[in-house]
């Protein structure tokens, strides 16, 4: 008697699993690699200042208040999409934004900033992309939230959206203030 219903039961189980899989993947992009740095200290770096290449900027300089590290490049179209939001965050004083100019040319980056605005507290330059390995950066745009003690609290891959800011960054900022 039960044998008759077994194939149907198996089929329904598989359908259920398929549905669960589809729903799970709606929430997240499976291509995005999660950051293993969450909860750990941000990697030490020593990169030149965009505006004054003879000056080297390190983590120590950024301690004391949280900051967003925004990975951008003039070659990156999605960076343009999120730039107004980044600008608003910086101008409103919500959090200071440190620009990470990734694999770019100085002239191109200058032009890009002149055209789209420079809201950055400061900008570090990573010309060949080596500094990026320690952060686990693999493209742009990417945004990290680092707290006042230098611990990475959040990473977002892709263009920042108001929903992400609302849901993920603002609540963490409240916890990240010294």
């Amino acid at each position: 008697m039960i044998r008759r219903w077994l194939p149907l039961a198996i089929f329904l189980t598989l359908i259920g699993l398929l549905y669960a899989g589809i729903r799970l993947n709606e929430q997240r992009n499976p291509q995005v690699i999660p950051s293993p740095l969450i909860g750990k200290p941000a990697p030490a770096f020593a990169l030149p200042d965009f505006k004054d290449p003879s000056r080297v900027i390190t983590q120590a300089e950024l301690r004391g208040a949280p900051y967003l590290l925004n990975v951008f490049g003039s070659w990156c179209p999605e960076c343009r999409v999120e730039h107004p939001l980044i600008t608003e965050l910086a101008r409103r004083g919500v959090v200071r934004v440190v620009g990470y100019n990734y694999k770019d040319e100085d002239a191109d980056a200058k032009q890009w900033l002149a055209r789209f605005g420079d809201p950055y507290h400061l900008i570090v330059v990573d010309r060949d992309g080596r500094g990026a390995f320690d952060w686990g950066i693999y493209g742009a745009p990417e945004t990290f939230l680092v707290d006042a003690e230098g611990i990475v609290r959040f990473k977002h891959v892709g263009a920042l959206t108001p929903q992400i800011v609302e849901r993920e960054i603002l609540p963490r900022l409240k916890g990240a203030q010294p």
Partner: protein
Amino acid sequence: MICRTLIACVLLALCFASAAVLAIDPLQYRDEAEEQRFRQLTSELRCVMCQNQSLADSSAGIAADLRREVLELMREGKSDAEIKQYLAERYTDFVLYSPPLRPGTLLLWLAPAAVLLGGAIAVFVIVRRRAQALNTAPPPNDSTEEW
């Protein structure tokens, strides 16, 4: 006739041209052994951008950067395991084609064998039941058959 051989020559030339494109970024190897080890190691790592390709095959910019980094780490004297760990610390276990056996990856490693075993048991049970059914029902004795 000339047309056909001309076309054949052009196609052949294109084949060689496309092979040249594959020399994406010529890294200078110190010797054969280094090149072999490098190719082996990078084929065991996943490209973080073009995630269907290995680090060896991918033409993404980040892949070229990471290949150079792997070569540098090799030259610094790091072992294969150390290099893999270096990358996994930064880009998670996702970069490894064979992730380490952890509580989180237990299902990943055991599921295929478990499903295969389950299927084999099911087949075995079904076949045995059928065989038993046949045994208990002997064919009817039809004496009109000739052979």
